Each structure stands twice: as C-alpha cells, then as structure tokens.
C-alpha cells in the first residue's frame, strides 16, 4: 500500500514543480538581440563575405542563432576566433582555412594606366571606398578600404591589386634572458 502512496506523492511533487516552471516559462523569455551586437563588435568589419555571409552583421546574427561556426572569419584571424570563443564561453576552434587564410591588413590600389572607368568595382565595394564615375578615372580611398578583395574579381582589365596597409611602428617588446623564467607569450 505504502508503495503506491510513495509513487503518488512523487508524481504530485513533480507535477507541482513542472507546473510552476511552465508558468514561469512564459513570464521570462530570453532575448538574444544583444548577443548579435556583441559578436558584431568583435568582428573586423571588413565586410568581405569570405565567411559565406554578405557582411559582418549577417555573420554575427548567424553565430547568435548558432547556424554558423565561430572560425569562418579569415580577416579576424585566430585572435578573432579566440575572442569569439571567450565571449560565448565555448572551446576555441582553429581558423577554418577553406574560407581563406589570415593575411595582414591589405589595401587595394588602382593602376591608373589600365583603368577604363567601367564603375564595376564601385558597385562591388561593400564600404563605398572607390571614387570614380562613368569613363572617369577611379581611385581607392586608402583610409576607407578594408582590404576585402571584392573589387578584384569584377574588374574587367584586372587593374586593381592589393598592397600591405601602412602599419604604425610599434616599439618591440623587451626580450629578457631566455634562461630567466619570465614566461613570454609565444616565445
């Protein structure tokens, strides 16, 4: 007899708790919009679509929804992947090479002798960094170009090429005698 009673009591308890949780479930709903913003803040904003999404914001939303992996952004490099892993509290993954490999920041430059003024690259540039008009000379605004390489393909005369972007000089980290154990990252 007491066996049945025990089962009844247990079922009653489970029922009460589940009911309480269900009721609470509607009152609180999770909001994930802020997550996409945080992820977007970590992405390098090159808008290069190498990750398979038409820009950084769509890729950020895809990660927030869980549809995209965190290692599809070559310009972000391994540091970018680690930052995303840190934010999402998940294990970091190696950069996925078939989306392209990580290169130092590049800037596009137009070879003015060969440019025919066809405006194809102007429409292709995701950040409107190319200045020019129909049959006029085109030029890349170096400060605005993110080095996303989207303008290379459409150019019929292939007159755009990539040069490394000028980097500010950073004074080197002091190296200390290796046999003295000051652990230096990477060294």
């Amino acid at each position: 007899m007491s066996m049945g009673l025990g089962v009844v009591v247990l079922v009653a308890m489970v029922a009460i708790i589940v009911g309480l949780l269900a009721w609470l479930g509607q009152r609180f709903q999770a909001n994930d919009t802020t997550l996409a913003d945080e992820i977007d803040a970590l992405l390098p904003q090159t808008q290069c679509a190498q990750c398979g999404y038409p820009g950084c914001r769509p890729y950020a939303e895809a990660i927030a929804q869980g549809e995209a992996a965190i290692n599809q952004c070559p310009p972000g490099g391994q540091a970018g992947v680690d930052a995303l892993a840190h934010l999402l509290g998940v294990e970091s993954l190696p950069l996925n090479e078939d989306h392209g490999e990580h290169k130092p920041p590049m800037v596009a430059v137009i070879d003015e002798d060969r440019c025919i003024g066809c405006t194809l690259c102007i429409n292709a540039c995701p950040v409107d960094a190319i200045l020019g008009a129909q049959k006029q000379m085109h030029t890349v605004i170096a400060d605005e170009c993110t080095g996303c390489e989207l303008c290379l393909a459409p150019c019929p005369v292939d007159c755009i090429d990539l040069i490394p972007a000028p980097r500010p000089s950073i004074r080197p980290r002091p190296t200390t005698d290796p046999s003295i154990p000051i652990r230096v990252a990477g060294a």
Partner: protein
Amino acid sequence: MDWVFILVSAALVNNFVLIKFLGLCPFMGVSARLESAIGMAMATAFVLTLASVSSHLVMTYVLVPLSLEYLSTVAFIVIIAGLVQLTEQFMRHTAPVLHRVLGIYLPLITSNCAVLGVALLNARQHHSLVESALYGFGAALGFGLVLVALAAMRQRLTLADVPKSFQGAPIGLVTAGLMALAFMGFTGFAKL
C-alpha cells in the same frame, strides 16, 4: 549561540569542498575564469540554501508522516532539479551574458554532490528548519569563497611560468591541495 557555530562550521571548519571533498567537479571546472566563478558561486548559493530549506520541509511534513523516509534521496533530487531549472530560467532572463558564460555548468548543479550532500546531512543530523537553512547557507558560503579564491589564483597562474606538463588543471589541483592544507588549520574547531 550555536547558530553561529553551525554557520562557521559549515563554511570553514567542515568546508564542503576542502574538508568533505564534495562538489569538486564544478570547483575545478568553473574556476578557470573569475567572473564565471563568481556567477557559479552565486547560482550554487541560491540553489544550496533553497534546497536545504525545501528538502527539510519535504522531509518533515511529507516523508516522515507518511513514513517514506527511504524515498528521501529521490525526493531531494527532484527538488534540486526543479530549483536548478528555476535558477536557469531566472538567470537566462536577468543575466543572459552570465547564463551563456556558465553554459553547461549551470544545469550540472543538479548533479553537484554538495547540494545533495547538504540535503541528506540535514536529514541525518535532524536539524530544525532554521538550522538547516543556516547549514545550507554556510555550505554555500564555504563553497563560494573557496571557488572564487581558486578562480582568482588560477587567473594569476596563467601569467606564471608553470612547467608545461603542469599547466591548466594539474596546477589547479595542486593549488586546491594546498588550499585544503591551509583549511586543515580549522580542524578541531568548535568541537563540531
């Protein structure tokens, strides 16, 4: 006066993690980063205290009158699971960032032996309602303090030149061992 003793003994003298060695898996798992450790400490404190109180209520007003004491473990697990889901819902709404950072370790509180341990120890030591609440809160304090301290230490250890074979969990365990050594100082305290 013995209330203070219960609190102190649960938090320091018979610290759940370092003396009773309960709740070791989140202790090592979550202590990699300070903010996740603090979040985990608060979440576990919330669950521990409530679990201690509710398990006592269920024990005295449901199981004992119906002489179903043998069901205590199962009942306690159900209560704790419910509480953990409650915490998870609450945290997903109020602190989504922390909820994401804790990730899998939040539902794992259900399987945290410290939580079940408190409930069972309360029953065995026949604590009154207030005593079991204090005992739960003391255990939570002890668990939280030690977890946050280890997290802070491990964060500092990432900058230390630990031998390669000891980096990560091994040095964490060595540190936990030395912490237990330090807590041995409290043995023989308050005769509890």
